[in-house]
């Protein structure tokens, strides 16, 4: 699918759609899980290195689950409170704002993160609003009075696209031109 940058420019500040949000969430989960795994492996390594403690697999599953939930809470709540976007959302150029478009506060970030789990607990029905809602808001958006919008500088992307095309055309012109030395040889 060929999507022009003009279309993206025209949607800057608009409610973000389901596909971008879903992919951004998956990227966030991958990043958060990878970081948590690395950190937990490092901690276990340190513990086993510095002490003689044996890690009980049955107990550790519960502990790790709780720690993972806490880590996810910190990951999302901090990101949405401070910048309004998680690393995954930053990659895809979307961010969380208040319902009226203003910058989110810590209250919005924490409330949205707590309500985020509710959208899962309702067997995913909480996410239905992103697809069919007039404002593309999920259940946790409605509870926290937030919205997700496109925030990336598509205009700058268009300029970069034009600049790269100009550079490619310039390099193509140079390669197509006959070498100076061979032209002189023909002349002689």
């Amino acid at each position, binding site marked *: *699918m060929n*999507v*022009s*940058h*003009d*279309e*993206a*420019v*025209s*949607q*800057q*500040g*608009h*409610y*973000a*759609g*389901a*596909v*971008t949000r879903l*992919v951004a969430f998956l990227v966030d989960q991958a990043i958060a899980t990878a970081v948590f795994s690395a950190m937990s492996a490092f901690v276990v390594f340190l513990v086993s290195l510095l002490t003689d403690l044996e890690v009980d697999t049955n107990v550790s599953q519960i502990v790790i689950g709780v720690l993972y939930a806490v880590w996810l809470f910190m990951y999302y709540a901090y990101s949405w409170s401070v910048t*309004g976007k998680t690393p995954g959302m930053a*990659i*895809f*150029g979307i*961010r969380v*704002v*208040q*319902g*009226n*478009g*203003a*910058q989110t506060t810590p209250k919005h970030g924490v409330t949205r993160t707590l309500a985020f789990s509710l959208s899962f607990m309702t067997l995913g029905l909480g996410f239905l609003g992103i*697809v*069919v809602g*007039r*404002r*593309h808001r999920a259940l946790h958006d409605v509870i926290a009075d937030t*919205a997700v*919008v*496109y*925030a*990336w*500088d*598509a*205009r700058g*992307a268009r*300029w*970069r*696209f*034009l*600049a*790269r095309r*100009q*550079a490619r055309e*310039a390099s193509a012109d140079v390669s197509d031109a006959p070498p100076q030395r061979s032209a002189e040889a023909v002349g002689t």
Partner: protein
Amino acid sequence: MKGMDNEWAIDAALGAATVAARTTSTVATAVSKSTPARVAASATRRLAAPLIREGTRTRDTIATEAGPRTRQVVGQAVPVVLDVVSLDQVLAAIDIDALIGRIDLQQLISRLDLNALLAGIDLDALLDRIDLDAVLAKIDIAALVDSIDLDALIANTELGSLIAKSTSGMASEALDVVRSQGVGLDNVVSRIVTRAMRRNVADLPEGPVLLVSEVTADPASAPSTNGRGPVSNGQGPG
């Protein structure tokens, strides 16, 4: 006809008067040049010599003292007049617009030596008195940037090559493409849902009020490719 009948009489009277005056002048000139008249004039001048001296003295006095005395009188009279006359009423009675309309400003400006005028102005001191922050606050930078045809600027100047060099990374290019593809897929899903639910696209909110209110106020600011209107703020939220 009656008026015409009377005109000849008036003309005749005027002609007679003219001839009489001319004759009298000729006769008076001839008489004044005659010997008896000269003798009489000489005798009269000698008899009137004391009167002539007195008259000359009076004329000199007036010439030397009239100026200062007049100024003194005016100086004493003007405050009294100003007390009586209301300048506000006088100024209210003057039509300033008509007065200015009578002034040839172009001619006035052409007579000014602007170089000399500018040389006398301390521009540094003038700039120090200007609140540049307030001036810049009144400028709509986003509108200013929108008015520039940056596509043409990039295509026709070295700016394009500079941008290409600074953003030649594959990651940057890939990020632009992925984001654009995401927006495109979102629009596809949104269009399908809108049709399925028989919604009017124009009635759907584009975004939060603070982010799209400027657009709804000026829908012609930029072309929209999806029929939902552009966002003109040029920057992301926050």
